[in-house]
């Protein structure tokens, strides 16, 4: 199965995979006591769908993403990618972490090439690295080292490093959290364009309700820790969306209410 999936990742442009999150619960042991983090989380994502996950800070969103990536195994429940259980990390599910975590000893180009190099296919696929750098508009900086980049540029390199693998599921953990609002808005538009062009399934964690509504097909709202699904809201508006759309404003009011912020409205 692995070899098959790898061959597919190499030869075809990725098409989104479906993702089933089946009754996932997870907890951490801290100093002997158990900290429940995810409580019976259950949802499924259709191929090519764009899902935004919203919830209070520390509720367990990043933990859920780590489970989907296969970096940790859930205490109970099953995750399925295209029906096959997730048992470990695999380059068809790529994460862009909360921090860009570029390797400081590698140039921008070599950072983007990381996935192909790790899979041993870099030699024959070098043009994919160039293409990914073009995509995020950083071809000029291919030989720069991470400490020579701005925060927004570093985040774009991290995005290119993920995209070069042609993932079936792209996992984004607040990728725009630390950017200024101007860069944010540009990158949001870029992400939508990329997603529409490539057709991968996307899971996006964000703190920004507007961002979630601007980007996603569906917004899943979590409760406080341990995270439970509070609401699963379809955003039934076509792309490209407009920030002033009254329907989005209405949804935004709903979601803020779910997050306990109705007093501000």
């Amino acid at each position, binding site marked *: 199965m692995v070899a098959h999936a790898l061959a597919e990742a190499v030869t075809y442009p990725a098409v989104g995979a479906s993702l089933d999150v089946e009754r996932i619960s997870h907890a951490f042991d801290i100093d002997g006591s158990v900290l429940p983090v995810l409580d019976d989380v259950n949802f499924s994502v259709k191929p090519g769908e764009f899902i935004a996950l919203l919830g209070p800070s520390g509720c367990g969103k990043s933990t859920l993403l*780590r489970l989907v*990536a*296969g*970096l940790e195994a859930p205490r109970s429940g099953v995750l399925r990618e295209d029906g096959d259980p997730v048992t470990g*990390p*695999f*380059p068809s*599910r*790529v*994460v862009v*972490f909360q*921090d860009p*975590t570029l*390797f*400081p*000893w*590698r*140039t921008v180009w070599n950072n983007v090439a*990381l*996935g192909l*190099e*790790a*899979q041993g296919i870099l030699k024959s696929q070098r043009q994919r690295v160039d293409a990914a750098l073009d995509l995020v*508009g950083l071809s*000029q*900086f291919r*030989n*720069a*080292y*991470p*400490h*020579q980049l701005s925060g927004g540029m570093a985040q774009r390199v991290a995005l290119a*490093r993920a995209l070069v*693998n042609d993932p079936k599921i792209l996992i984004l953990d607040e990728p725009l959290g630390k950017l200024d609002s101007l860069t944010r808005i540009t990158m949001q538009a870029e992400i939508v364009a990329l997603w529409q062009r490539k057709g991968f399934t996307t899971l996006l964690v964000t703190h920004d309700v507007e961002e979630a509504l601007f980007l996603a097909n569906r917004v899943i709202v979590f409760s406080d820790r341990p995270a439970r699904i509070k609401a699963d809201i379809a955003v039934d508006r076509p792309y490209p969306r407009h920030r002033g759309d009254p329907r989005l404003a209405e949804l935004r009011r709903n979601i803020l209410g779910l997050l306990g912020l109705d007093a501000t409205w």
Partner: protein
Amino acid sequence: MSTYSASKTVALAQSAEEGAALSGRPLSLAVSFPAGGTGVFASLAWVGFGISCLWWPDIGDWTRTHQLAAAAFVIAGAIFLATVAGSRLGRFNAGLQRRAPWLLVSALFLTLWEAATAKFGWLPLPFFPPPQSIIEVYTDDLPKLLDSIIASVKLQLGGYVIGATVGFLTGVSIGWSRSVGYWVHPVLRFIGPLPATAWLPIAFFTFPSSWSASTFLIALATGFPVTVLTWSGVASVSNSYYDVARTLGAKPSFLVLKVAIPAALPHVFVGLFMGLGSSFAVLVVAEMIGVKAGLGWYLQWAQGWAAYANMYAALIVMSLLCSGAITLLFRTRDRLLIWQKGVVKW
């Protein structure tokens, strides 16, 4: 999208750094001279040194006084010509300009040394030999000195390379594998902190030759800091680097070779630097006590014959070699760790 290129920025930053180094040079004597004023002064100082050799008679019996004076005049002439040729010499001239104050001060120092020893005997002989007697050592005792240098370099290089390699591999294995750590860590804690020289008496009768014993001791002195720092380097690699690599499909070998080791390299170089220092100490002691060759032995031998000029000559060579080794290490580091910002320049 801004249009400046990253490589240009780097080049700019470098030339700015060079400019800062130039303008911050010490003893800027070139106030009244348009260019190369300090160079002219340095040249004059060397002439002065040459004259000081010839003007007064030597109070002792040294054969190289005239040659020393001649050499001083040659150096003075070379500095003068280079200064006059000025910008036509390009980078060489820039280097000369930067070093001119140092050339000036060293000529003054040599003059003072010459006067205090060979001419007026302010410093007691034979403990403070004049410059010409050290030149005499370099010309007349050259074969023996060369043999000693070769022996020292061979011993040091062999022990250091073995120690650094073993230390690096051990450090990576302890940092990476729990079970290796379980077995090696206690041994390391028990043996590592012991100064390698404490093993001297045992090593010299357990090893087949004093040469192999010394190699072992130098390797030991190098290996301990390299092991500990490599280990701490590997252990302190952030987990998020591994997470990134794993989600991109990295296998364990990739994680070790392409994540753990490059991330640990700055620590490894600190270990290599510390190991170099402590292995120099072991080298000299081992040569003095056991191996009948090398600069340490030469020092010992010179002391036995009260040949103080030979001792100073050997010390100067030794310091050049040690400094050269450290320069080489730092050059290698700068090349490998070009991605780090703000590293110490040696």
